[in-house]
């Protein structure tokens, strides 16, 4: 079996490891602007994917399929991003008699469309955010919907987006004042005065459930909490959710709900159902990601189930490593810190060259999935995430201790990175208590507490000077 990996960076490495361990041939690709991509060193065969831009390479469906056919490939793994959730690509791959390692095209279509996925969720008895059914034409109607769902509510222009045409109303008076204002905003910004009303979740937690399925079984592999986010992107994730804590009823309920949704679309691969959870632990379906996700390792660490390995076996029609839901149990606690080439204070991407890289002495329980080597250039062409530091401990405190030590040990020189931001968050009391929502970065502002100690300066300057003299 020859498996083509159409991705790069840490996920290409993760996939290659799983392919190799199953006794198959991992085939990696390189593009003209990245001929020495680090992931190649983990693949058994290397193919050139001609071109430089993403549209010429990782997104070029026809080129990828011809390359696969010319090189006697049987299966294609898309990783995440690029073509991972493109049903058109899945259909083309299958039409050529190749196997797509991921879900069926129809499940991708159904979950990829916001309106369709919401309808499927409702039909499958999966809670969605309560709100008006369609537009509310008058203030009176908005008031009656709001009384029904309870305040606070969010008034949203039908065509709104990017924070425009949206206002939170905590009571009826505010609703009366805001209604005409949002109508005008909708008209002036989007040419549409139509309004929707929905329940406003004040301090939402992002909780997601891992699904692992084949043609015969759909299992959940428990939940992850991913509320530490900047620019709507996660930077720290943990499993199990600290917010759900010991509330096993909530845990079982959210996991079973996710399975119901997956069943409704005949899901048959690894995937993730995302929810937001309110302070009273009621939860609402957000979307389903029909791919392997960045943060999958924390689920692997706390359940012992190799998601990549099983995702591949599932696609090939082989029996997965587990055959019943009862075999899947959560143990201990795992945390992931995404290491990104970005300024730890502004959190903006900072491309550059890694001049020095050292793992130090990583403690027991640490896994580092990464694509870093000394001399590598991180370009603005790709996502700034360059690695994922993952800790596992018997409980949350132990996982935090191990992560803090791992962050102390890890050295990445020459390239701005967010190691210091992670250290700051792992010392911050709200995070330590497990009391944080998706507004954490915005409200607690740990980035403003990032501190460089005189020891940091001394260590880095001394290292530059001594290493410079050794050449």
């Amino acid at each position, binding site marked *: 079996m020859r498996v083509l990996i159409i991705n790069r960076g840490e996920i290409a490495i993760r996939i290659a490891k799983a392919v190799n361990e199953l006794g198959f041939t991992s085939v990696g690709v390189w593009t003209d602007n990245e001929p020495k991509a680090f992931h190649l060193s983990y693949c058994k065969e290397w193919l050139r994917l001609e071109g430089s831009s993403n549209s010429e390479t990782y997104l070029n469906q026809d080129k990828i399929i011809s390359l696969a056919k010319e090189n006697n490939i049987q299966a294609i793994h898309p990783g995440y991003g690029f073509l991972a959730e493109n049903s058109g690509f899945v259909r083309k791959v299958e039409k050529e008699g190749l196997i797509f390692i991921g879900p069926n095209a129809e499940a991708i279509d159904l979950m990829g469309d916001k309106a369709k996925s919401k309808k499927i969720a409702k039909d499958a008895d999966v809670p969605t955010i309560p709100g008006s059914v369609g537009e509310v034409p008058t203030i009176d109607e908005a008031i009656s919907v709001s009384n029904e769902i309870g305040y606070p509510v969010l008034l949203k222009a039908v065509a709104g987006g990017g924070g425009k045409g949206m206002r939170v109303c905590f009571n009826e008076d505010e609703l009366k004042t805001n209604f005409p204002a949002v109508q005008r905003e909708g008209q002036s910004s989007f040419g549409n005065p139509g309004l929707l009303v929905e329940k406003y979740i004040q301090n939402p937690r992002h909780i997601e459930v891992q699904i692992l399925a084949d043609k015969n079984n759909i299992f959940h592999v428990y939940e992850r909490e991913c509320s530490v986010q900047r620019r709507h992107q996660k930077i720290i994730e943990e499993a199990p959710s600290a917010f759900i804590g010991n509330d096993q009823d909530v845990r079982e309920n959210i996991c079973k709900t996710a399975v119901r949704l997956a069943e409704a679309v005949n899901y048959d691969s690894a995937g993730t159902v995302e929810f937001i959870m309110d302070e009273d632990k009621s939860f609402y379906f957000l979307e389903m990601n029909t791919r392997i996700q960045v943060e999958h390792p924390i689920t692997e660490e706390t359940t012992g189930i190799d998601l990549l390995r099983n995702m591949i076996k599932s696609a090939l029609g082989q029996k997965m490593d587990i055959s019943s839901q009862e075999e899947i149990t959560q143990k201990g606690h795992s945390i992931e810190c995404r290491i990104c080439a970005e300024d730890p204070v*502004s959190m903006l991407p900072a491309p550059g060259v890694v001049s020095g890289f050292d793992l130090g002495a990583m403690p027991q329980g640490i896994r580092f999935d990464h694509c870093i080597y000394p*001399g590598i250039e991180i370009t603005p062409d790709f996502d700034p995430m360059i690695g994922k530091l993952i800790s596992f401990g018997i409980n949350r405190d132990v996982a935090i201790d191990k992560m803090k030590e791992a962050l102390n040990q890890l050295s990445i020189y020459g390239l*701005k990175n967010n190691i210091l931001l992670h250290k700051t968050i792992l010392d911050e009391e709200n995070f330590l208590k497990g009391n944080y929502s998706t507004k954490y970065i915005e409200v607690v502002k740990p980035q403003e507490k990032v501190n460089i100690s005189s020891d940091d*300066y001394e*260590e*880095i300057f001394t290292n*530059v000077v001594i290493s410079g003299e050794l050449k």
Partner: protein
Amino acid sequence: MRYYFSGELEKILEIEKNNDSFFMHSGDEKKEISLKEIGDDLFYKKGNQWKKVIPLVNPNSINIGSENYQIFRGFKPSGSGGGDFGSLVTQMPGKVVKILKKNGDEVKQGETLLILEAMKMENEIKAGIDGVIESINVSEGDNIESGHVMIELDIQE
């Protein structure tokens, strides 16, 4: 060898080799740094602790948190160079018009070492100290980026 770090702070460190250790000067402070090789790694002593030396590939700059430091190796020349700090390193992209010295030449403080054309002006890059030219890393006609180490000077004993 002297190292300049230029960023939010300016720091000058001077280092001398001494058998199994280094002497490092920082301002008026001078201390000996012991070294020990274990396996493939080299360690230096900081206080009572040993720290691993992480080898660096072409370190022209270094990050510390959100701060960035340009690293200049060699001596800070004075005069009408390309800037106020470490003028042996280009402060802006430019073209080397003429090189007036060669490797091993002894030079006096204020002597012109090379001429760099940048921003449509010719700049004389001068020596900031009495010293010996240790290496010349550019040729006449070269177009160079900012941050490039053009000449390295060593202090004259």
